[in-house]
């Protein structure tokens, strides 16, 4: 009867389905952007360049450091200092200790999380071990530096900030990527 009409209509609907398949993937960067703006997932931002800011000596904020191992991760991992009292605007340095007690070379990635989540936007890192993967040979240990500034604009109700790192074993993923790379050469 109206066959061409039917076919073209069905094709249009199929295009909608294809578009929604793409939309599913578009939700990935969309989610990242929304998290960046709101700090929703408690992640801190990328590396920032240190700037000379006036130090707000009238406020003191307690910063707590927590180190966790993800399930199956066997490294020793702990902050060298558990809490610091800081002034907004001032730059500080602390270290996290990590040791690989296993008999093999391993690669780890630390992932940060800040509580309360809305304060994560105000914790700036000028240097962090979490920006890159850590590789330790068997028995090797390391003090990993973290340089940070708490922004002067941090909301008044934030008196304590908790910065937690979870250490993930990414040895296998790195190996896979390495094999890929070698395969390409």
């Amino acid at each position, binding site marked *: 009867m*109206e066959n061409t009409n*039917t076919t073209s*209509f*069905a094709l249009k*609907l199929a295009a909608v*389905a294809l578009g*929604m*398949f793409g939309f*599913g993937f578009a939700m990935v960067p969309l989610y990242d952007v929304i998290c960046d703006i709101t700090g929703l997932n408690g992640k801190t931002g990328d590396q920032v360049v240190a700037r000379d800011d006036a130090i707000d000596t009238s406020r003191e904020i307690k910063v707590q450091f927590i180190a966790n191992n993800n399930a199956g991760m066997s490294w020793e991992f702990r902050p060298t200092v558990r809490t610091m009292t800081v002034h907004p605007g001032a730059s500080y340095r602390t270290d996290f200790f990590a040791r690989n007690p296993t008999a093999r070379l391993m690669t780890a990635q630390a992932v940060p999380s800040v509580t309360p989540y809305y304060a994560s936007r105000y914790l700036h890192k000028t240097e962090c071990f979490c920006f890159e993967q850590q590789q330790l040979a068997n028995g090797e240990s390391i003090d990993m530096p973290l340089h940070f500034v708490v922004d002067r604009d941090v909301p008044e109700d934030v008196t304590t900030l908790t910065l937690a790192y979870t250490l993930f074993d990414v040895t296998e*993923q790195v190996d896979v990527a390495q094999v890929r790379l070698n395969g390409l050469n």
Partner: protein
Amino acid sequence: MSAVIEHDHHEDHHHGPDKGLMRWVLTTNHKDIGTLYLWFSFIMFLTGGVFALVIRAELFQPGLQIVEPEFFIQMTTMHGLIMVFGAVMPAFVGLANWLVPMMVGAPDMALPRMNNFSFWILPFAFSMLLATFFMEGGAPNFGWTFYAPLSTEYAPPTVTFFIFGVHLMGASSIMGSINIIVTILNMRAPGLKLMQMPLFVWTWLITAYLLLAVMPVLAGVVTMMLMDIHFATAFFDAGGGGDPVLFQHVFWFFGHPEVYIMILPAFGIVSAIIPTFARKRLFGYASMVYATSAIAFLSFIVWAHHMFTAGIPITGELYFMYATMLIAIPTGVKVFNWVATMWKGSMTFETPMLFSVAFVILFTIGGLSGLMLAIVPADFQYHDTYFVVAHFHYVLVPGAVFSIMAAVYYWLPKWTGNMYNEALGKTHFWLSFVGVNITFFPQHFTGLAGMPRRIPDYALQFADYNMISSCGAFLFGFSQILFLFIILQTIQDDKKATNQVWESAHGLEWTLPSPAPYHSFSTPPKNLQEAHG
């Protein structure tokens, strides 16, 4: 009127169905394909039901008696997957295949060959999914919601079969929904306006659009899982820069509309049945159409109410709470319309009507517990408890499943040409009704007291309610054998049904002979007064 129809019928007589098995494999006839879908979904319903009975048998007493915890969680996962994707969804697609062309006065579905294809990939999809039971690592064990990283990093190796199974089901659903949309919008009998269509057609049109919008997102999320597992991407792997919470957002963006996909056609079914047995026109036809559209729209903007405990900001919690509660308004419109249709009607209670009235009452109970779950602070207590289990089983079993049973009893005489045994039908209803309530009502209490879902063992204080619940489950489960018997008996019987079947049924399908001829409406019907009920 009937003379015109008889005439059509005679012209069609010489195009009968092919003989033998190949009739079913090669068929492009909407009635054959509808039958295939319905039988397939019934087999899946029994399969998923057996899984449910394994769960309830284990939970009959506290402690571990019958199955290992590893197998128990495979049972809860597969029960959910089979019931959602194998039983409820194909049953509605089967009903759409049988009924939509007859209701809009079309000779067949718009794309008959694609129709054949969308059915025949389903048995392959589910064979693949069920075959995982016999593979190393066992069946999927991460819950029907398959949250990452349970379904990626910690999944059994069979997860890849699950992923491809979901891809196939998704392809089937998308093709089915395209077919239904094109049929409804392009193939209506000339002169049949949209606002004259029966509500079953309306609700399916809206459902088909929902399917088209969200099944590809489901395909997307399982594709991301596939890449995380096999191609070293890190969509959901925090160690690689991904985020497991992202999985929940993408999944529930599919998952919440999916919930309405499983209930909107049910609304259409009871909107057809209640007027027939109340012997009144449906109250508020237009408001029913608008309410259905409103529910469909709202389903896209409430997904995070499944994730209140995953850590979302207070503004997000408030928004998703209020948006969710908003859904109660169009749903309330529908419930009140059904009640108003029954109000002062000359009601009789044949089996389809019994199932429909039970639907209205029990679906409302399930809807109200849904409102309780929408309250953020309360949800922190209810989350992942048996209260949630009770809630969604109330909307899915006496909701979706009862509506499908109502539809089968209501249209079975039109499909087979024979009347079913009313006494047995009523027995089936009462056994199911009592069984469902004994099974799921106590779960509200165990849930409020804090019993978590998907756990094979429980604290002693939950023992009594669980035992009651298990008894109800076995009653409900075994009474479905009676359902099978009634259907087979009706097909075999020669208790001829009239063309009208039900005294005051309205709609084009009732103008056809019983059983409906293999080809109907080869020439479009002229008298469209009958079109909507």
